[in-house]
C-alpha cells in the first residue's frame, strides 16, 4: 500500500517537473565545509550572491568542527548521507575518486585547457583523464612572520632575506635567563606545526635537493642536500642555540605571546594574530638560499561534486561550482578569509601583490610546490620523530635522516601498492 502511494506521489512529481511548471520548487543542494568563522561568513556571502543570480536554486551549508571533519565526511558520504558539494583537502581526493564518491566536472563547462591556463599549476593534481575532479577557491602558502617590536629592540632593520641572515637575526633576538634557559627564541621550531612543509618543499630544495621523485611516490631526501637541510634546521637549536623545539608548547603560542622573534606559518594565522592586543608583527617572504633559490609550500582545499547529486541537483551543483571558482568568489574569499586566490588573474592584481600582509604569501605562490601526501599526519609524524631521535636519543643526523626516509618510503609503498 505504502509502495503504491509512493509511486503515485512520485509519478505526480515527475509529471509536474516534466511539465516545466514555473511554480516548481527551487532545487536545494547541500554544501559541507569545516567550521572556521571567516570561511562561514565568506561562504554565506557567496551563497547569497549565487542565489540572487539563480533564483531557482538554494544552497544549504552545513559545517562541522575542524578536528573531526575528515572522519565525519568519510562516514557520511559512503553511506549516502553526505552533501552534494563538499569541501575536501587536496590530499584526500585520491581516496574519494578511487571509491567513486566524486563525479568529474563536466568538460564542456570546465575545459582542461582553460583551467590549466587560468589556475596556478599546482591545481593540476586534481586532473583525472579528460576531466578535472575538483577545484579550489583559494590556496595557501608559507611566509615568515616577525615581531616588529623585538626586531626594533634588537636593532635589526628588517626581516632576513636569506637563510644566513635568518640565523644572524635569530641570534640577536634570542634571550636567556641567568641559568641559561631560553626565555625568548629567535625563531620558533617544531615539525609538528608548519615546519615539516618548510623542510620538505623549502629547505631541501634550497639546498639543491628534490624531496620526492616519481610523482611523490619515492622518497628522495636521504641525500647530501637532505642532510644539509636537516643540519641547517637542527643547528638552529644545537649550535646557534636560538630556539628550542616545543618552546611554550606550540610555536604559534610563543609568537602570539611575543616570546619569539620569527615564526614560519600559513596565511590562515593572520586572523588570529590580528586579534592579539599589543603584538606588532610583519610578514616577509621565506628567506632565500645563499644562491638566491627560493622555494615554498602550498596547499589547498578543493570543492567537489559527490555522486549523490543527480539530475537537476547535479545541474545546480555544477552551476554552484562554476560560481565558487570564479574570480569574483576568489576576491571575496581573500577579503574575508585571507586565503589566496587560486588563479593568478585574481591573485596577482596590483593591489593584492603589494598588500603588506598578503603580498609575501602571494609572491610565494609563484615558486611553491605542493606535496602529494598519502597520509599527511603519518608523514608529518615521521619528520617529528626524525628530530626527536636526534634530540632525545642523540642519534646522528645521517642515521636519523636515513631512518626517516626508510619509514616514509614504507608508508608510501603500502599506500600505493
Amino acid at each position: 500500500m505504502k509502495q503504491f502511494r509512493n509511486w503515485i506521489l512520485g509519478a505526480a512529481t515527475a509529471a509536474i517537473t516534466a511539465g516545466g511548471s514555473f511554480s516548481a520548487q527551487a532545487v536545494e543542494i547541500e554544501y559541507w565545509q569545516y567550521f572556521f568563522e571567516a570561511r562561514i561568513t565568506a561562504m554565506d556571502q557567496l551563497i547569497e550572491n549565487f542565489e540572487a543570480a539563480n533564483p531557482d536554486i538554494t544552497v544549504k551549508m552545513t559545517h562541522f568542527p575542524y578536528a573531526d571533519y575528515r572522519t565525519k565526511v568519510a562516514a557520511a558520504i559512503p553511506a549516502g548521507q553526505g552533501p552534494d558539494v563538499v569541501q575536501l583537502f587536496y590530499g584526500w581526493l585520491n581516496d574519494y575518486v578511487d571509491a567513486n564518491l566524486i563525479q568529474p566536472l563536466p568538460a564542456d563547462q570546465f575545459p582542461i585547457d582553460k583551467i590549466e591556463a587560468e589556475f596556478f599549476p599546482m591545481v593540476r593534481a586534481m586532473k583525472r583523464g579528460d576531466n578535472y575532479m575538483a577545484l579550489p577557491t583559494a590556496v595557501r602558502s608559507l611566509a615568515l612572520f616577525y615581531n616588529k617590536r623585538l626586531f626594533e629592540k634588537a636593532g635589526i632593520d628588517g626581516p632576513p632575506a636569506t637563510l644566513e641572515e635568518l640565523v644572524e637575526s635569530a641570534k640577536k633576538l634570542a634571550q636567556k635567563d641567568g641559568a641559561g634557559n631560553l626565555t625568548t627564541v629567535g625563531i620558533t621550531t617544531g615539525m609538528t606545526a608548519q615546519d615539516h612543509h618548510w623542510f620538505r618543499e623549502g629547505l631541501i630544495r634550497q639546498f639543491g635537493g628534490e624531496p620526492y621523485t616519481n610523482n611523490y611516490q619515492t622518497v628522495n631526501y636521504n641525500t647530501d642536500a637532505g642532510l644539509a637541510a636537516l643540519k641547517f634546521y637542527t643547528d638552529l637549536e644545537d649550535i646557534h642555540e636560538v630556539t628550542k623545539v616545543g618552546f611554550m608548547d606550540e610555536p604559534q603560542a610563543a609568537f602570539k605571546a611575543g616570546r619569539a622573534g620569527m615564526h614560519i606559518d600559513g596565511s590562515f594565522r593572520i586572523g588570529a594574530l590580528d586579534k592579539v592586543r599589543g603584538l606588532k608583527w610583519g610578514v616577509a617572504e621565506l628567506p632565500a638560499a645563499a644562491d638566491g633559490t627560493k622555494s615554498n609550500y602550498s596547499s589547498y582545499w578543493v570543492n567537489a561534486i559527490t555522486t549523490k547529486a543527480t539530475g537537476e541537483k547535479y545541474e545546480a551543483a555544477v552551476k554552484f561550482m562554476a560560481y565558487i571558482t570564479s574570480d569574483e568568489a576568489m576576491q571575496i574569499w581573500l577579503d574575508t578569509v585571507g586565503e589566496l586566490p587560486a588563479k593568478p588573474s585574481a591573485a596577482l592584481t596590483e593591489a593584492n601583490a603589494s598588500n603588506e600582509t598578503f603580498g609575501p604569501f602571494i609572491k610565494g605562490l609563484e615558486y611553491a610546490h605542493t606535496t602529494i601526501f598519502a597520509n599527511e599526519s603519518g608523514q608529518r609524524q615521521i619528520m617529528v620523530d626524525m628530530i626527536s631521535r636526534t634530540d632525545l636519543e642523540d642519534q646522528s643526523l645521517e642515521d636519523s635522516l636515513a631512518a626517516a626516509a626508510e619509514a616514509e618510503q614504507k608508508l608510501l609503498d603500502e599506500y600505493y601498492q
Partner: protein
Amino acid sequence: MAFYKNLTISQKQIVWAWCFLAVPTVFYVTIRFYPTANAILVSFQDWNLLGTRTWTGIDNYVKLFNDPVFWKVFQNTFLYLIIGTPVSLVIAFVVAYHIDKVRFMHGTIRALYFVPFMTSAVAMAWVWRWFYQPVPIGVFNNFLASLGIAQIEFLNSTTNALPAILAPAVWAGLGFQIIIFMAGLRAIPQTYYEAARIDGVSPMATLWEITLPLLKPTIVFLVVFSSIGFLRIFDQVFNMTTNNPGGPLNSTKPLVLMIYDTAFNGFDMGYAAAQTVVLFLVLLVVSLLQLRILRDR
C-alpha cells in the same frame, strides 16, 4: 498461569531471570555484539572506509606482529595498567579510609576530591600540559627553578612522559574510586567494629581482618573497572600530546590511540580492527584473570 505454578522454584528462577534480561539482551546483541562481530570481520579485510572491502585473510595480523610500533604500544599499554591501577587504588583507599573518619567539613573535603572527576578531559589535559612546560611558562619547572633545582623535561622525554601523562589520569579518576570505596566502607555493619573494639583488636588488625575482607565486592569492582580504564586510556594521552600524538617517539602511545590513528588518520580500517581485536582479547584475559584470582563467583 497453571504452567507457571507447576514449575519448580529453580525453574521459576530461570523464567524470571530471562524476563529481566529480555530487553537488555536485545539491546546488547544489536547495539554491542553485532558491531563487535563486524569489527572482527573487518580485521580480515582491507577497507579504507570509502571504497569496497576486500578479503585479505590474516594479513592485518601478520602486519601487526611485525610492526615494532605495535610492540612498543603494547608495552606502554601495560605500563599504564601496571602503574596506574595499584597507585590509584592505594591512594583512593587511603584517602577514603581517612575521609570516612573525619567529621569537620566532611562534605567539603569529599567534594574537593571528587570535583576533578567531573571536569572535561580536554580542558584539564591542557592545564596539565601547561603545568609541565619548561620555563618560562611551566608551573612545576618554575617552582623547581625558584628552588635552584635543574629543570625536568616532563613531556619532551621518552622516559618521563608516560608517568607525566598518567598523573592526570589517576587524578581525574581518584574521586570516583574514593566515592565507591566510601560507599563500600559505609556498607560494613558497625557491629563488627564494635565487637572488635570490645575484643581489643588493634586498628591495623581491624583493617586487615574486617575492613578489607568485607570490602571485597567493592575491591573486585574497582580493580576490574580501573584496569579496563587504564588499558583503554586515551583522552589524557590524546589531549596532552595533540601535536605529536603518543609521542615523543611513541613513548606514551597506548593501544586505543594507535587504533584511533590507524582508523581516522590512516583510514586503514582493517588494520585498526585487527588492533581492536587484540585489545579486546587482552582486556578479556586480564579481566577474567582478575575475577578468577579474586574469586568472585
